[in-house]
């Protein structure tokens, strides 16, 4: 019911907004939100803050670019009904692989190993021309045409992103309640006890990373359709930090916070030029992040919920 209250207005947005607001603000926020969701999923349920999400998203995005129509004449063009599952599969597998490599790391060490993976992936894409086309990357990537309608057109892309976001949210809550999801949370809370029960801790960790790779890959595919391009810039240190900022602004402990964070980030990114001197954009975004970390360590989602709770309490006497 609560979801309906949020989703129904979102379904009506295409009627209300022009292409710019629909695509550049809403669709972009949904896509970034899905990638950030893959981070907050890991943070909430596995207790791991991963800096490798941009790489997982990149794995999905690069696959779509390599096996799709592009203007750099690299790769093999496959029909979208093969390339999309393939991209999701590779992103999931890459996520699982990262989980396998990082499975023994905790806390700050997990941050470091995932950061190293993210940066190594970035440099690899920049240097490799056969698969990633190096510095230049892929351009002219076109979203699939279905029944003569391009998925890149503003309204289809928006609905596609909205659908993906809703499904991702549902998957996260479903997965968290599944036996594997519970095992993941058990590993987070008491890895020793899980081992004592004779259950492997590796499997839940790898599963969590693989699932997070699926989410990130979904965002990565949408992002390639939206940008119509992907390059080493898309998986560099900037995007890595952006994803983190989005998740933190929304609240690392709240999956839905990822989307709140994404909206705030996109609005700042798009309109900061009208508010502050563009040259000082990084000071602005850094200050926002710092203020959130200091005053609302659980992010805006928590603030909203606290505010709502207060309102409810304030209302009660009059009822």
């Amino acid at each position, binding site marked *: 019911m609560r979801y309906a209250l949020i989703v129904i207005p979102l379904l009506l947005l295409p009627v*209300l907004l022009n292409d710019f607001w629909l*695509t550049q603000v809403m669709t972009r926020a949904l896509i970034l939100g899905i990638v950030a969701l893959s981070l907050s999923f890991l943070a909430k349920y596995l207790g791991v803050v991963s800096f490798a999400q941009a790489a997982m998203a990149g794995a999905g995005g690069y696959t779509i670019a390599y096996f799709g129509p592009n203007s750099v004449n690299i790769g093999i063009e496959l029909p979208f009904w093969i390339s999309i599952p393939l991209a999701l599969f590779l992103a999931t597998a890459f996520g699982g692989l990262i989980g396998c490599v990082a499975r023994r790391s905790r806390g700050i060490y997990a941050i470091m190993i995932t950061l190293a993976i993210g940066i190594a992936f970035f440099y690899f894409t920049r240097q490799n*021309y056969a698969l990633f086309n*190096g510095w230049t990357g892929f*351009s*002219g990537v076109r979203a699939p045409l279905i029944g003569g309608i391009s998925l890149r057109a503003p309204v289809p892309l928006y609905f596609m992103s909205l659908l993906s976001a809703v499904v991702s949210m549902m998957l996260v809550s479903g997965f968290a309640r599944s036996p594997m999801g519970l095992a993941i949370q058990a590993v987070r809370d008491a890895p020793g006890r899980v081992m004592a029960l004779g259950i492997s801790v590796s499997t839940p960790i790898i599963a969590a990373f693989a699932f997070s790779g699926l989410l990130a890959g979904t965002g990565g595919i949408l992002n390639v359709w939206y*940008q*119509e391009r992907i390059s080493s*810039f898309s998986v560099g240190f900037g995007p890595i930090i952006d994803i983190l900022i989005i998740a933190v602004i929304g609240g690392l402990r709240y999956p839905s916070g990822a989307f709140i964070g994404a909206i705030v980030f996109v609005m700042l990114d798009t309109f900061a030029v009208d508010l502050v001197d563009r040259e000082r954009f990084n000071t602005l975004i850094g200050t926002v992040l710092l203020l959130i970390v200091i005053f609302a360590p659980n992010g805006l989602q928590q603030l909203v919920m606290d505010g709502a709770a207060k309102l409810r309490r304030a209302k009660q006497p009059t009822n």
Partner: protein
Amino acid sequence: MNKLKLAVSILALSAASASAEDIKIGLISILEGNFAVSGTDAIRGAELAILDVEGSVDGNKIEMVSMSSDGSPDTAVAAARKLIEQDGVDIILGPLSGSEGLALRDLSKSYPNVTFINGSSAAQDTTLRQSSDNFFRFGGDGAQWMVGVGDYAFNDLGYKSVAVVAEDYSFPYTQVLGFMSEFCAAGGTVPEKFWTPIGNSDYSSVVYAIPQDVDAIFVALGGADAVNFLTQYDQAGGDKPIIGGSTTIDQSILESKGPFKKLLIGAPAGSPTVGDYDGAEWQAFVKAYTTNYPDAFSAPSIFAHHYYMAATAALLALDEVDGDLSNDHAAYREALTNLSFTVPTGGTMRLDANRNGIVDNFVTEVYEREDGTLGNRVIKVVRDVSQSLGQDPEAFLAMGPVSRDNPSCP
């Protein structure tokens, strides 16, 4: 709900009607991060062109909206989309750097009702391969910017064999092509090329790998990378002469702080823009620049110069069609295609079949000014440099896209 939609459409309408007689030009430059200084200068160049026509063409007011990218293609595309979809611009002017140019070229195919005029971005393939009908470049590419240097190095300086040290991405590949196509044709050899990762700071192992029997080193590194390489080469006792790429020896490097600069004195380089050039048109341009922007550089940078040429072209063509942008800019694009005008460097700018500029280029040399600062002085001006570098366009295309190994003449 309907009310809201109405309100939105009224807003959209009023925005549209306000600009009915104005012509909106969207400017894309890098106004944040390391390139902010260059990006700001690019904006100055465009502003100067608008000042030239006092802000209107045939009674149509010219309105300029600028957006920033951070130098990555993704942000350049986002900036262009905002300018087109939200601000409703007719013409996009920009971007500044190579990968951004390729990205906007691709984007331009999705917006046939907008005309894109390149700023200072100089990737070769932006116009050479898969050019776009509504993407124009009134300037050269990275290879054109090196024209004259290979010839000068071989014939005037007598270098027979040159090693290359360059950053490992498309712009330096193109610069190396520009140098090598002349140098190799003249009979020179390039026995070894060292492609180093961007942002590498310790070049010491590259320094020692440079063969002893070369006559000079062609260095196509930008910014801090150039500073680091030159310093380390000097400290290791290296004494080969340096030949510079267009961004290796630009004014921002010459104005950087540090002892490495003395190594550069006497080094030749190729560049489309030379601050100290004494041509009459250039001096007039410098005067306009310094009068309007007394706190800026001592002369327009390569970026101000290119954005000025781009904006001038945009305005001249507008004047030719009396501001008529109807029919998806058909007449306007025709005018742009056939434009021919004198640029600040004194030559005549016009476009080739791919809508790429036929340009002037300079062979320069670093010298010490009387006050101890460094500048570039002109050795030679090369006029009418085409994108195929004077070769047969078909044969030039057949050489294939530039890469780490193409071209090659060991």
